[in-house]
């Protein structure tokens, strides 16, 4: 196996890949997320966001005062489509007279 340093294990994003993105001119949490896919796997950024911020602060591409994580959206936990659709079915049934 190669020796990689991971920041996001869900999407396999390494420190080298983030440095590559920084070299391309990307700097913020949001930009790095969009370019590398970091934070978009099953953990939804729970493991990697803060590790990324610590790295970017270290690289000096962002400042600690204004830094914000990327938007948090549901679902934060695994939920099946079947479960979500049962909620919709129920709402529909209630709407009908």
């Amino acid at each position: 196996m190669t020796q990689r340093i991971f920041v996001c294990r869900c999407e396999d994003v390494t420190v080298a890949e983030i440095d590559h993105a920084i070299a391309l001119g990307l700097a913020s949490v949001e930009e790095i997320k969009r370019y590398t896919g970091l934070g978009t796997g099953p953990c939804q950024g729970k493991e990697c966001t803060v590790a990324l911020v610590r790295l970017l602060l270290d690289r000096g591409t962002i400042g600690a005062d204004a830094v914000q994580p990327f938007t948090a959206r549901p679902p934060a936990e695994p939920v099946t489509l079947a479960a979500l659709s049962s909620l919709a079915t129920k709402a529909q049934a209630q709407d009908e007279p």
Partner: protein
Amino acid sequence: MFGADPLLRARDTAPLAAERRLTILYDDRPIAATRDDTVTAALLRAGVVATSRSLKYRRPRGPFCLQGDCGTCLVRIDGVPNRRACTTAVREGMRVEPQNRVLSGGPDPTALVDRMFASNLDHHHFMVRPKLVNRVMQEVARNLAGLGTLPDRPAAPARCEEHHPDVVVIGGGRSGRAAASRLRAAGLDVACLERREHDLGTAVAHAHAVFGVYPAEGLVAAMDTAGDGDVLRTYRAAHVLLATGAREVMTPLRNNDLPGVLAARGLAELLARTGDVLACPTVVIGPPSLARPLAATLGADALAPDEVRAILGGGRVEAIATSSGKREAGCVALASPAAPASELARQAGAQVQWNGDGFAVVRDADGRCGAGPWTLWACGEVAGTTAQDAADDGERVAAAIVAAHRQGTIR
């Protein structure tokens, strides 16, 4: 590999009472488990560390955080893919299977991807042209990159249940539990939602994983998968208290993804809960102020991150290369200052601020952090307190909620 070199073993070597013993199947082979075990605890005791392969580089992966945060312990359970092994309690005869592998048994040919792309794999520029090559690549990538394979049978529709407590407490850890019991003592109707099945039997009623907080709809939504059939529960309440705690942050080290690399915090909690001890040479890697005391409790060694050149191993941790040579290890525990687990708070509309360790919820002196269809509150580590102070903080904020609720009801 199977059954070799367990990571954990029971501290107590006396045989278990028959009613405490049960058997689960991993990849069709029986594994002994203890009632109240999580699937991960049983697997680590049986020496099963790697349970899937990663999406891009196809590297072996196993559990890390041990508390339902990271998502690499996903396995197939009773024909359903992507179940978290670390938060799921064992049941007699449960069928657990690894996922994201191409062949069962033997070396996985897709592991070559890791070597072929020894430097970066930038998907914005890789095999984009010519068009035909791109089409082939897309197809291959799509086939490899999914998580698990489809369930054995279509999922039965979930039941929906609506709840209207006075207070929803999200999180049943130190602060959430303390707050919930204070609120209940004051006569309030409380739903305390904790996603870890193995915390059942405490002040927490069921394992409820809150997946969404929807301020526009005034709704907290949670999945309950612990019983027979999934239940989707929705909550509307006058007060929502965020007590989601904090979590380990990944330490950047070479091969920090190897199976057998675990979050120190999760590991310490797992050992405390199950009464297991480490069964292999273990090294805690982290800043000395954190790593040393932890290593002492675990009976492990401590190293600072800058002393470590790489974690070494094939399919799992075998050794650590340090500045002064190589040392054997079967398990690595990574310790770093814990970061507040503030995603649900942000979904709910609370503000967060970088506090040097992570993003902590910003709240007023009473613990309020927002308004809307409910009053939003935060307590414990998610609001930046230490783990030691979390329970006290939970009680303090609960007292403020009781006062606010009484005022609200009088008005």
